[in-house]
């Protein structure tokens, strides 16, 4: 149906446009028929999948393979052919710890500090992100005045580049920033947010939630709008309390969307780098040093660019991410079953 309710106009069969479309589509007929003849009807599925597989192979699996090979070599040369094979040395260096719960006891203490900070960040960020996105989606799903405006406002930060987001907040939070200006106007003392480890982690999480919440709200909002209205009407007729409606109707039916949001938030949180790096620089000390920043610094910022060690660290990070995602999907499937 078109916007005014009338059915869309079909292209007249003998028109120029129609003939052009037929001619263009017809160009593929012969080659496709030939391919189908060669591979058979069943094989056609793989033919259609091939471009995507090629794309993934080239830009995802091949780099993973190169990264794996890089992690088994040493030295500072860039090309694999010029790098000496060192076996599992980098992995051994990364795993050499007195206690995995105490990064200071590890040979690569910054790696483990990064792992510890990333886990903390992920935990706080997931709870805050999913909670805030859910509440916002529930509110924006109600018939409130200015609903369209608020939906746009919450989504707007998603459009900004992470570096821009971090710079904006850095200006707000620095010694002479807007927030400290407001605090001193109210008679308070300036707070050095980037010097106190607790504050630095708090703002790293806060800024991340502020910047990305709109996207997850949108996913949840789509899920909420897909829940049939008659379920709510039936519940209302039965006099069901709002909290019970939320826990017995809304959340169970929203579960598939929540799983998507949880997986995406988890992956994004573990990969966090740009926002936190620009906002806090990993400091104070190493209080907000994330594991991706460790990888970046080891490979590029240190005087000796240790690509092998960085590649080994990223392989470990990738494995951790894979395991966490599988675990989460397994839990979600069990719950759905």
């Amino acid at each position: 149906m078109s916007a005014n309710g009338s059915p869309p106009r079909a292209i007249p069969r003998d028109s120029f446009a129609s003939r052009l479309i037929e001619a263009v589509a017809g160009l593929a007929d012969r080659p496709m028929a030939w391919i189908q003849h060669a591979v058979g009807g069943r094989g056609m599925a793989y033919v259609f999948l091939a471009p995507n597989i090629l794309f993934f192979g080239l830009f995802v699996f091949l780099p993973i393979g190169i990264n794996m090979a890089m992690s088994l070599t040493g030295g500072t040369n860039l090309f694999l052919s010029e790098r000496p094979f060192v076996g599992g040395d980098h992995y051994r260096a990364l795993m050499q710890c007195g206690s995995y719960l105490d990064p200071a006891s590890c040979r690569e203490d910054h790696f483990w500090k990064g792992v510890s900070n990333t886990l903390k960040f992920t935990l706080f960020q997931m709870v805050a992100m999913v909670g805030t996105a859910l509440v916002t989606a529930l509110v924006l799903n109600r018939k409130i005045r200015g609903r369209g405006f608020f939906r746009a406002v919450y989504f707007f930060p998603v459009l900004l580049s992470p570096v821009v987001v971090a710079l904006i907040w850095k200006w707000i939070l620095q010694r002479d920033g807007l927030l400290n200006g407001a605090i001193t106007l109210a008679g308070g003392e300036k707070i050095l947010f980037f010097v106190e480890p607790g504050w630095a982690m708090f703002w790293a999480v806060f800024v991340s939630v502020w910047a990305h919440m709109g996207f997850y709200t949108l996913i949840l909002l789509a899920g909420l709008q897909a829940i049939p209205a008659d379920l709510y009407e039936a519940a209302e007729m039965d006099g069901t309390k709002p909290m019970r409606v939320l826990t017995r109707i809304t959340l169970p039916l929203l579960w598939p969307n929540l799983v998507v949001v949880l997986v995406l938030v988890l992956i994004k949180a573990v990969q966090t780098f740009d926002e936190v790096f620009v906002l806090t620089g990993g400091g104070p000390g190493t209080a907000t040093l994330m594991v991706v920043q460790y990888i970046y610094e080891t490979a590029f910022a240190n005087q000796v660019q240790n690509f092998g060690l960085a590649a080994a660290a990223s392989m470990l990070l990738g494995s951790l991410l894979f395991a966490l995602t599988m675990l989460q999907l397994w839990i979600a499937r069990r719950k759905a079953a």
Partner: protein
Amino acid sequence: MNRRHWLAGALVAVALASSPVQAQTTLRMTWYSDGNEGEVMRDLLNRFEAGNPGIKVVLDTVPFKAINENLPVQLAAGQGPDMARIVDFGGLAKFALDLRPHLANAPNWEQNFGPFLEWMREPGNTTAIPGYMTQLTVTGPLVNKTLFEQAGVAIPGPKATWDDWAKAAKAVADKVKAPYPVAFDRSGHRFFGLAVSQGAKMIGADGLPTPSDEGFRRAAQLIVDWHKSGVMSKELWGSVSGTAYRGANEEFKNAQVPFYLSGSWQIAQFDKTVGNAFDWIAAPTPCGPANCSGMPGGAGVIGIKATKHPAEVAKVMDFLASEPILSEFYARTLFVPGHIGIAKKGVAYRGASAQAAAALKVFGDAVGALDPAAYRIQGNAYSRIVFNAAISRIGQAVAGEITIDDAIKRIDADVAQQVAERNKK
């Protein structure tokens, strides 16, 4: 198309193919700027191009961070420029082109850049001429004279110690409510500006770095103690992690810093940006138990080994490093000369205010007071490994995460690991 048209077309093609535009060699120079030196260099290159129509030089200006982080990767991949302005001479020595076979007057280069060429050569190489110095830098304090006057605190004299300066700057900051009594750039090079005066040597008999000597430890302890006592603010050294550089330029320009340990390269910038807002001076490096020496340093332009046009690169370098051109470059950029002949004759700095000229004089004098250990540290191929390890770990000690003892153990381990990695063949 008749025969006459074909003939005309062929003539045009031959004319185009043999025109100067077709024969031009384009060279790329990767550059960074602290002040106006990019504009000055472009102006000089325009002059070179006018005299050498067969060579065009494209100046690719990048942030300083890219010089240290991206350029090495580019060079390792064989994708770099033909020339580059760099500061990490030792780290990039293996990518440098030996200009000697292509230079018009190699002995002249040796005579004027001799001590600095050693910084640019690979260990064991005693003959290569990889490039020239765009500036010699010296670390040293920049002092906000107006803040001292407002606070009624006397500026310490020429032989004042670090302790004298720390006390004076703290007294000033307390009176005028300046948030940063003493500010150091978060840089290993600046840290060694303090450490050398405390007796740090950094290099063992075998030429390998031995960072944690007594002088180094004393300097690290001072930095940590100053943060604890409020002489230094954690916002520079304690607020970021790893090897991140943080300068206090903005804070100094905003009159929030009575005493700023930075260096000679800031003069042109402050002369322009501070203007008449307040009076500032350069002071001699404070004295420690060992000496009153800061750290030398500098930036230079090197030719890149992977260039396809070594002769043209040498021609450009010969022009840029010639005495009249380089003298003009130093005069217009307010840089301390890294050319022995020009340094001896002196530079008539152009457009410098009285306070900038006075500051240049102080830094020029400081060059003569540099301790030999400072030159050795700067020229060591591994110095930047130590610089980076130092700021990363001392930064953690400043933030209160680890003790000085732990920081020094970690610095030793980090340096050993990186030296081993660099030497893996």
